[in-house]
């Protein structure tokens, strides 16, 4: 999703200033002096409106009857007589099979989030706390792979799946997403695990705990914040992905297609009946929005941790 470049700090960079002073005081100082300028409010508020209006308009349209949607723009729905309906949702969930596609998206996304994180955690643990030849070279390779466009892998991987007979199956997408998600996951986790206190692992080793025990009992629990960030990233990335499912599931097993592919094909097949698309788009957005609003803190921390020197 992103090409991060800095070590992951334990704390989000936003919490402390360079001087070590808590942020609250600093911000108050800035606000006291410049906060009242009306031009700032106008710019910020109009950008907020510009950012909300597209989604808001679609949400309102998704509850309007077809005839209304094509007769007047969405703001007119805000004035009486009010006429809202669930018909658009009913139709896309039943006739257009979005209900099934929603389940497919879950079946694809959950393993495609778990597998890369666990596999990356094993590797990150080795990179952080074990010594082996070519360790640094291998890690530089991982950093290099961060930016490989997945387009440059599509054809050979598709042929591989076709040859092994798993093209069209969920398994194909799980494996592919694991490969694509790994560089970022290894990178982020290794930087975090490498920052954990050395003494903890040393004393565990003295107490006779093997690497597996130290990993499951110490390294993983201590890395929960970064694991949460990573899980959100990978979840959103896979849930929102179109290309990987489009290519590896594609026409081979259309009953396995996730929401994004089904909605993208509705865009071209519905033609004039575009009002159903409004509801369809919201069905795809509902879970990411819930994840986003409930876990925003981890999401932000993951982004800033990946890119800002902590």
């Amino acid at each position, binding site marked *: 999703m992103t090409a991060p470049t800095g070590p992951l700090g334990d704390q989000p960079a936003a919490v402390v200033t360079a001087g070590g002073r808590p942020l609250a005081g600093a911000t108050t*100082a800035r606000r006291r002096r410049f906060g009242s300028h009306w031009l700032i409010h106008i710019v910020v508020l109009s950008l907020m409106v510009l950012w909300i209006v597209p989604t808001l308009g679609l949400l309102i349209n998704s509850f309007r009857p077809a005839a209304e949607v094509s007769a007047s723009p969405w703001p007119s729905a805000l004035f009486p007589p009010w006429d809202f309906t669930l018909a658009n949702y009913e139709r896309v969930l039943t006739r257009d099979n979005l209900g099934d596609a929603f389940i497919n998206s879950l079946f694809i996304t959950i393993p495609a989030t778990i597998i890369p994180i666990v596999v990356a955690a094993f590797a990150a643990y080795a990179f952080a706390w074990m010594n082996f030849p070519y360790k640094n070279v291998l890690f530089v390779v991982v950093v290099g792979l961060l930016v490989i466009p997945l387009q440059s892998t599509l054809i050979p991987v598709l042929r591989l799946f076709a040859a092994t007979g798993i093209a069209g199956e969920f398994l194909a997408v799980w494996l592919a997403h694991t490969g694509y998600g790994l560089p970022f996951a290894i990178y982020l986790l290794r930087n975090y695990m490498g920052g954990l206190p050395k003494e903890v692992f040393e004393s565990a080793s003295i107490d006779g705990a093997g690497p597996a025990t130290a990993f499951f009992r110490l390294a993983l629990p201590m890395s929960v914040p970064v694991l949460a960030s990573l899980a959100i990233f990978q979840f959103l990335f896979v849930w929102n992905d179109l290309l990987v499912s489009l290519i590896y599931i594609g026409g081979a097993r259309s009953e396995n297609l996730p929401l*994004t592919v089904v909605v993208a094909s509705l865009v071209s097949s519905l033609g004039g009946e575009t009002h159903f698309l409004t509801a369809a788009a919201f069905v795809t957005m509902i879970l990411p929005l819930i994840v986003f609003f409930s876990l925003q803190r981890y999401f932000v921390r993951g982004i800033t941790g990946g890119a800002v020197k902590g």
Partner: protein
Amino acid sequence: MNDLLTAAIVVIGVPAVLVGYIVGAELILTRLVPERRQGRVRPWLWIAPALAFLTVFLIYPTINTLILSFQDRASRSFVGLANYEYFFTSSGTLEALRNSLFWVVFMTLGVVGLGLLIAILVDRVRYESIAKSVIFVPLAISFVAAGVIWSFMYLYRTPGTPQVGTLNAALDVINLGPVNWTQEPQPFNNLSLIFIGIWMWTGFAMVILSAGLKGISAELLEASRVDGANEWQVFRNIILPLLMPTIFVVGTTIVITALKSFDIVFTVTNGNHGTDVIARRMWAEMFTNGHFGRASAVAIVLLLTIIPFMALNIKRFREQEAVR
């Protein structure tokens, strides 16, 4: 496959296999390998799954794609540079290349510029966290959903029929338009699509730049204001230079995102009306035209444009490791 069985595999099977692998590997290692050799074997067992995935899904396919790009449509015989010649002479691919360049320039400028502007402005208002959430939300939704959302923003109908697209309805109120945002005039309709990308990614830049901004010492800013610097001078001479490394990181991420952009064009115009980009072009060569040689050549061109950023990433990583 039956849904319940799939659900069981998803929730129980997958984690069990993963945990089973490492527990089993450790068990075999401690039972079968002499103790003094364990330390040498162990790391490889821990990174083996990752290396296998990276090799099978990234390294091998990329090398294979390079080879395929020198072969014919069904990968039967070598055709030299014919696929690249096609790429750099056919009007369709050149147009896609031009549009991808538009994406890189305008999406990067838009995202970084707006992200910086918003990061600086929301620092001075009381409703900072709400403003940030609003700008940030689009990053959580799919490009497909964003494409649908903006299709309704840009919706165009022939003059005389009621304009129900948000933008044209707004223009209608002030007796202007309607504008056919995604079709005419070319090539400016690309900007309509690029703005969807900007709408989605500005939150990303804002969050990172805002964190960088809060890291700048308030005393430093205050001191320069006391010394008589105006707001523009403070921004130009203090904030901007200090944020430059962060701006650079955000910028390269957006450049790569713009180069790889596929979903928005695929959903909104499907590459018609002069809006094709190289990532969608590759898909078209692959599935519409069934020409795997040309599709691979497009992918390799895409990869080559990204290689400099890979080198930059590695260089920056090395520098950070040296500081560690």
